[in-house]
């Protein structure tokens, strides 16, 4: 069974909540950290990597200066603005960060100056964690594309670790783009983490629309309540209007932050904020169980 935690907005508390849920599930679960270009699961869970492999995004292109006749056909063919004239004007160059690797330039180059090359775009890791849960995670090198493809690799690795009986917890990236779609695909349930703020609610609504269009079952958790009661009420209304069950609410409380600094997850925080976390996770587990049985 696979459960994703997503929020739309960044910084809503996805990784923290995922870690707390992982602590509750313990050894039976595998966390898939799918926020591959801002991966914090390894820090939150105290990862001890025991396996790593290079990730190749697919061949990229570059222009050999000596062969380039500076005709400019490649730049004309490129729709992504990734090909520019080199200073001096005697040749062209591909800006790797902007290149989509479509290869349209190769077809147009009459000089055969465009060559393909394969380089490591990141690494994929499998780790043990101090919580007992195992972790599949990755580091995409800054500026690399194809994060959706790497998300699929992380998911595959997590699925293999979990086997048929295990639980996979997907920590999704922010936004609603391709790595998010790759994170939600094939999950039994999506935990929609709504930050009780103007932007948190707005972004959650877009995410709910996306997850609904993908036919996902959803459960909501509201985070950072207690700062503004009107905003808390708006978050509840958004969850209600979307027809989602609300598993619980977690207050904005410095004790949660400081517990993480001491290497704990939210699950083990003493006091009222910790009680809210435990209640939300208990409710989540029973809701998710009922989805799993259906």
């Amino acid at each position, binding site marked *: 069974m696979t459960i994703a935690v997503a929020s*739309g*907005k*960044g*910084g809503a508390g996805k*990784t923290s909540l995922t870690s707390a849920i992982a602590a509750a599930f313990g050894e039976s679960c595998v966390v898939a950290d799918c926020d*591959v*270009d*801002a*991966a*914090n699961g390894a*820090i*939150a869970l105290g990862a001890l990597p025991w396996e790593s492999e290079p990730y190749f995004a*697919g061949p990229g292109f570059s222009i050999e200066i000596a062969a380039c006749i500076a005709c400019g056909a490649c730049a004309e*063919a490129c*729709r*992504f*603005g990734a090909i520019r004239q*080199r*200073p001096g004007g005697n040749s062209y160059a591909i*800006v790797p*960060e*902007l290149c*989509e*690797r*479509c*290869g*349209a330039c190769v*077809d*147009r180059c009459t000089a055969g100056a465009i060559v393909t090359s394969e380089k490591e775009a990141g690494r994929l890791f499998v780790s043990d964690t101090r919580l007992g849960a195992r972790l599949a995670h990755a580091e*995409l090198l*800054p*500026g690399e*594309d*194809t*994060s*959706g493809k790497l998300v699929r690799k992380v998911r595959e690795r997590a699925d293999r670790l979990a086997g048929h009986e295990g639980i996979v917890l997907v920590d999704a*990236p*922010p*936004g*609603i*783009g*391709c*790595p998010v779609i790759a994170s939600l695909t094939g999950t039994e349930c999506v935990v929609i983490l709504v*930050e*009780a*703020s*103007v*932007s*948190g609610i*707005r972004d959650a609504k*877009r995410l709910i629309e996306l997850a609904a*269009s993908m036919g996902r079952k959803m459960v909501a958790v509201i985070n*950072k309540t207690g*700062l*503004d009661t009107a*905003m808390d009420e708006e978050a509840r209304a958004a969850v209600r209007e979307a027809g989602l069950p609300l598993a619980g609410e977690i207050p904005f409380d*410095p004790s949660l*932050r400081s517990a*993480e*600094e001491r290497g704990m997850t939210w699950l083990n925080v003493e006091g009222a904020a910790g009680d809210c976390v435990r209640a939300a996770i208990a409710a989540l587990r029973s809701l998710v169980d009922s989805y799993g049985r259906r």
Partner: protein
Amino acid sequence: MSEISRVIIAVASGKGGTGKTTIASHLALAGSMKRAAILVDLDVEAPDSFGYFPAAAPLGPPEAVSVRLPTVDAQRCLGCSHCAKVCRFGALIAIGGVVTIDERTCKGCGRCVASCPAGALIEQDLEVGETRAARSGTLVLLEGRMKVGDIRSTAVIEAAKKRAERSGVALEVRDCPPGTSCPAVHALAGANYLVLVAEPTEFSLHDLGAAIELAMSLHIPAGVILNKDGFGSADVESFCAARRVPVIGRIAFDRKRAQKGVAGMLWQEDQEMMACMDAVLASADTAMRFCVPAEEGGKP
């Protein structure tokens, strides 16, 4: 060296939720007191900067952003499946000589269209998002908004950048998406200066490191704002010093600011905040005097 007539400051972070939109909005606001300024929201999957300006008046109707996607003219198609072979995205599938196009995964690169020997692929516009403009006092607001369910965020980002350029406004402040992959790269490309917003947590530091690397590979001079100072105990200052990136501003964490933040209210009367924004604008001006704009291919 020549004066830079248009200044583009990008606000990014790596990690989400560190305060990019808050900083970008206030930076644009502070800038608009002295010159014409535009705030461009390039977090097209989750655009939130308009939320700070609820009274802004729309500037014309939204403009649609489209990509050109191929469709198959079955009358002309030879069934050679050459198009499916050249597509690097797996967006064209040829089974038994019949080509189908998955318009969700097609990036609109046009390679298949150019390579079809029969001219059987005809391109049509598909809407992937829109840009909207508004005015709040002297500040112009612009946002890119990707359609829910689409994945072509970079097309929307580029369209918003072009529309901002058309406006010709002297100071452009970009609110960038989180992360360091394609959407962030497109949002940063062409900026003269990068403001990285960090909070004192281990999560933020890790992602800040990646964002600094990206800035270096794009040759954009950068400075860091330490936001929510006191919220956690991670040492942003030493982290930045080790990477030779200056800390150009500090904003202390306080519950009142957090409350304003969740309610989407500006902190204009917050003197510490506005003084910090003025200092950041000054840092950007200084840094740019020593650098050639990234767009012109120069290195610092």
